[in-house]
């Protein structure tokens, strides 16, 4: 059985607080910037959201899904596959954008 000793109720509560705070931060920033700073660069805002979401994902995986307490080999073999998504995302977004450009330039 895996090292269940790792996680405690304190850690669970701490994670809950972190996730809540990050979510509220996201919503807050979205609302404030949407309402008061419409000229704020969209890409920067989106980057901010992406980073915060990845942070949330990290906490859910590490604490709730117990990954922090598994052996390194196990974490490696399970999560390494996700690396493949990086190029998938980049290539597809680039493609999507190029359809837009194609349609407006040659359509």
């Amino acid at each position, binding site marked *: 059985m895996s090292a269940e000793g790792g996680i405690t109720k304190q850690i669970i509560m701490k994670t809950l607080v972190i996730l809540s705070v990050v979510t509220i931060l996201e919503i807050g920033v979205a609302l404030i910037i949407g309402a008061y700073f419409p000229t704020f660069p969209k890409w920067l805002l989106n980057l901010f959201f992406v980073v915060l979401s990845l942070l949330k994902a990290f906490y859910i995986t590490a604490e709730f899904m117990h990954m922090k307490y598994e052996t390194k080999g196990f974490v490696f073999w399970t999560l390494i596959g996700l690396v493949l998504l990086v190029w*998938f995302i980049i290539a597809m977004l680039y*493609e999507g954008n190029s359809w837009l450009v194609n349609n407006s330039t040659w359509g």
Partner: protein
Amino acid sequence: MADTHAHGHHHEESFISKYIFSQDHKMIAKQFLITGIIWGVIGGLMSVLFRLQLGWPLEKFPILETLLGHWAEGGQIVPEFYYALVTMHGTILVFFVLTAGLSGTFANLLIPYQIGARDMASPLLNMLSFWFFFLASAIMFYSLFLPHGPAAGGWTIYPPLSALPQAIPGSGDGMTFWLIAMALFIVSSLMGGLNYVVTILNMRTKGMSMTRMPLTIWAIFFTAIIGVLSFPALLAAALLLIFDRSFGTSFYLADIFIGGEALPQVGGSPILFQHLFWFLGHPEVYIVILPAMGIVSEVLSTNARKPIFGYMAMIYSILGITFLSFIVWAHHMFMSGLNPFIGSIFMVLTIIIAVPSAVKVFNWIATIWKGNIRFTPAMLFAIGFVSTFIAGGVTGIFLGNSTIDIQLHDTYFVVAHFHIVMALSAIFGMFAGVYHWYPKLFHGRMMNSHMGYLHFFATLLTAYGVFWPMHYIGMAGVPRRYYSFENFTTFNQFDGLNAFISACAIIGFAAQFIFIANFFLSIFWGRKSKTLNPWNSNTLEWTTPLEHFHGNWPGEIPEVHRWAYDYSKPGAENDYIPQTTPLTEEELKEPAHH
């Protein structure tokens, strides 16, 4: 005590739990193999039918009308049926024979045997994996008899052709059945794949470290990982396609005027489907070829009585191929309107695959160099595999180069390339595996060797006879998936060559019955092997008793002390040292290979 219990367990089994809903990996392997063989015959027969049309486009064959009815009016196959045939041929061979039939058989048979486990991690899931595959098979088979025919949009089912029943008759019910069958197939392959990965990672016997595993297991391991990670893309793509077909969404459809009306869908992209499809489709060809590579590595080493050359390099090259297989998918789409910049990146990534592939080829050749080669039928097919893999591999360098691909894309050159490198090689690997592990499948019975030799040389000659001339046709620019070339003066100058190809295909198909007869007759009449280990092999499966029972080894599972490739080791008594033999004093001192 353990022994008697195991046998007792064996006797408890009823017919149904032993032969039908069996949870024993050996029985499931046999089920996959036999289903795969049946599909192989059906898929092969389809290729004979459309080769008849391509080889003798103006001839009439009355027998076809007898057999196929309105699909071959007047003895000549109609275009709609021709396209249904090529579609189903591709689907059946790629997914049902070379994925399920190959991986399903050898993963199931070899994983528990070669890593020293009683069975798969979850025998129940394993059984379900087969039965989902069987269900998928049944549905796909039924679709062949639909009134409007099976799916006919190509095995790649590119929309809009596959999304619109108006576009081709097979895109109606035929396509629906195709999608249902493939959804079940994906579930089956997921259940199988999860089992294989987990069993290999978790259930190795004592001493069987990862770097002591036979290369078959390494290959199957990466195959399973590829399957687990790539089939979801097809699942997602198929779900979206189902929505486009049935609920009027526009993920893949845009600005279409067909059947006299303009469809409401706007904004979608057919290229999107191609991306998703090939995100599965390209790794899929490695799902097909990797197990064959593993089998061939094992068979070459055993029968050359020589350790596989560069064991670690082999593992790294499989790893490299696995990784690269996921990031090169768009090389199937250079001419699809892909962004040229992205295209050039895909070209670079694609060409890199040639490096690990070359390493593997050189390692195989180095393995037989200065060996002591025993030409069993399995060994013949393994050498045939290396030959076809080279022949098909080098043409990949042409097609991976997007500039050359402008001319070669969707010509017979492509057909020649992927049939030689993927279809032939994988089939050769499969044959090698069946001949080699037949005694393990069927209680120590051996297949008939001389029939095996005949089968091999007939297959090798006709295989090259079919696919080699296709390069020439393709280099002349003749497009694939043409029902007839008669309309084009540029394309219709190869009647003689096409007839030759068709003749080879028919002979080659007939030659496969030598194998089929050998396979099924040997179950009953095959010579019983004198020893447990007829090939003097090192791996663990040859230490199991001939009698099959659920649990593989009576008593304890043997402990492993060395890698699988100690053949002809200097100082050893025999030219093989089974993995179960403890290391000697001298061996402990020398730097371990692994």
